[in-house]
């Protein structure tokens, strides 16, 4: 993904970091949009619609997450994901 239609960066808030449940919530949220969404953490990145890839990013609290989306509903997708993370995944 060279140029994204929408990008947002947000800090991981919840105590346990990006473990199984938050990963699942990210995938669930991303799957509700048609846009292709990548989650970038430093040099690593994951397809937000792949539970394996998101899970393997396993990041601690305080990590900077960058969501980049491309497609019709790219802006809506990144904003939904950002508020999910900012809300601490409802934990």
């Amino acid at each position, binding site marked *: 993904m060279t140029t994204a239609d929408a990008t947002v960066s947000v800090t991981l808030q919840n105590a346990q970091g990006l*473990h*199984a*449940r938050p990963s*699942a919530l990210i*995938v*669930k949220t991303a*799957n509700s949009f048609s846009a292709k969404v990548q989650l970038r953490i430093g040099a690593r990145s994951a*397809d937000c*619609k*792949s*539970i*394996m*890839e998101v*899970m*393997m990013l*396993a990041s601690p609290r305080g990590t900077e997450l960058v969501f980049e989306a491309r497609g019709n509903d790219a802006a809506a997708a990144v904003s939904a994901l950002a508020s999910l993370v900012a809300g601490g995944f409802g934990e």
Partner: protein
Amino acid sequence: MEHLGGITVSDGIAVGVAVILGSVERDTPELQVSRSRVPRELDRFEGAVRDVAQDIEELRERTKATLGNDAGSIINTYLMFLQDEVSILRPIRSLISEQRWEAASAVVRRFRDLMEELRGLPEPLPSRIPDLLDIQRRLVDKLQGVTATTHAGKLPRNSVIIADDLTPTQTAALDRQHVIGIATAHGGPVSHTAILARHLGIPALVGLGSELGRVAAGTPVIVDGFHQRLVVEPTAPAVRNARARLRRLKNRALRAVGAARTRSGTMLEIFVNIDSDESIKSLKSLGIAGVGLHRTEYLYLGRDHTPTEDEQTAHYTRILKAMAPKPVVIRTMDFGSDKWDPRIHSLREPNPALGLRSLRLSFAYGEIFKTQLRALLRASIHGNAHILFPMVSDAEEFARARACLTEAASGLQAEGVSFREAVPTGAMMELPVTALVGESLFAEADFISIGSNDLIQYALAVDRTNRDVADLFVPHHPGVLKLLDMAARTARRFNKPITVCGEMAGLGLYTPVLLGLGLTRLSMAPSRVRDIVEETRRCDDEACRALVQRMLEAPGPQAAGRALRAHHEGGRRSTRRD
């Protein structure tokens, strides 16, 4: 004709045909196909993904219904693996289309790589490996045409279930109209599955080993519980012989038993353990003292929704009415560990035996617990109901359980629903610590029931289903006997009834030990009653007390075991039922 040796966990003989259930361990498929077969393999793969997703969705709904939304959402993660295009679906498709792997082989290769990758990462990632394994197994099973769950209608008559191992859920869901025998590669003699098979009266063999994997579906087999073996493709005379023995057994089981009285005149009170209301009427004619333990888990398992208050009330009422005026001890739900769907607990608990199980789980899922307590109270007016709380650790925890009952009672009272005011409530002693702090608990509880299986598991730190340590699961360990002795003495001091209702109660080997400890109320599977009554008649009180003394003073289980065997050999020549 071929014989496979195993361990009999449920007596009897079954002559039937092999039905392969779940996955008996098979070799990892390593098959490649011709280019022309590729589209077909791709189709098969897509079909398997759809089918497995559907199975998992059904499992999720059942789980939500029984354990609530939280547990259901854990299973959602499973579905996500099956929707993972990038890491799972696409790589498998390309293994099929580009490298021409057969569908199941492609699945196994991809999952092997993913698990390898997870294994090298920091926790908690490696702990997701069982999830992947489970999904891989489900996909491969679909592709190889193995039935993952049995639906009654699909089973042929006279099915002998062949499996790697059976979960209690699977066993509970087996249709007794069709299933006449069970044979598994793994599993131990006192696993819950074994216990359940015994209660269902289905002859079962476990520990038959990996050779069981070679038995093909549809093969004629004989489960021969008396010779501890599975006969594969028996000859015609072998079948005739087995059928004749089966007829003799059936005639014998129908005769009522007399009183269980020792040679010294001590009367034992024999109760039965039941899981369902199926055979309740025939039990009364057995001449037993009552139902010592009605396990209620199977009311919840193997069905598509949590039983409602009305359904439960009707169920308990049937049992209470059938047994009245004899007592029926109903244990509140005792889930967790190996009795619940392992997919739910293993996801959350690295060590379910020490986790959120039994009464703790009931407290955590208060609404489900309350529904059961209300149903029990409503049914209580129809007979002699006793309510038993499982795995109580001490008097405080017992008080908390009783408070839940009181709360349920006030609710009913406010609604003007009738129930019995003073239903006796008891505690199950399954933790060593409960025996140690027995005094305050025995002062509060109306009765005590000893769950010897868990008591032994926790006292000796042995998982009875783990083949590597199963031989360390020794009911006659002097330390275990000391706990039983302590409990028996406390019960006598407080003049409270105490009943042994674990497997130990139904094993004739231990009858003299329990008698010697002064434990004279025993509850067991109905099929064990006759043997125990006969064993009791051979016992002499004084000799039993002396035996227990020797065993309590033994330095370990081996010496205690020798004393026990010497007692049996001295008293009589061992007799077999066959």
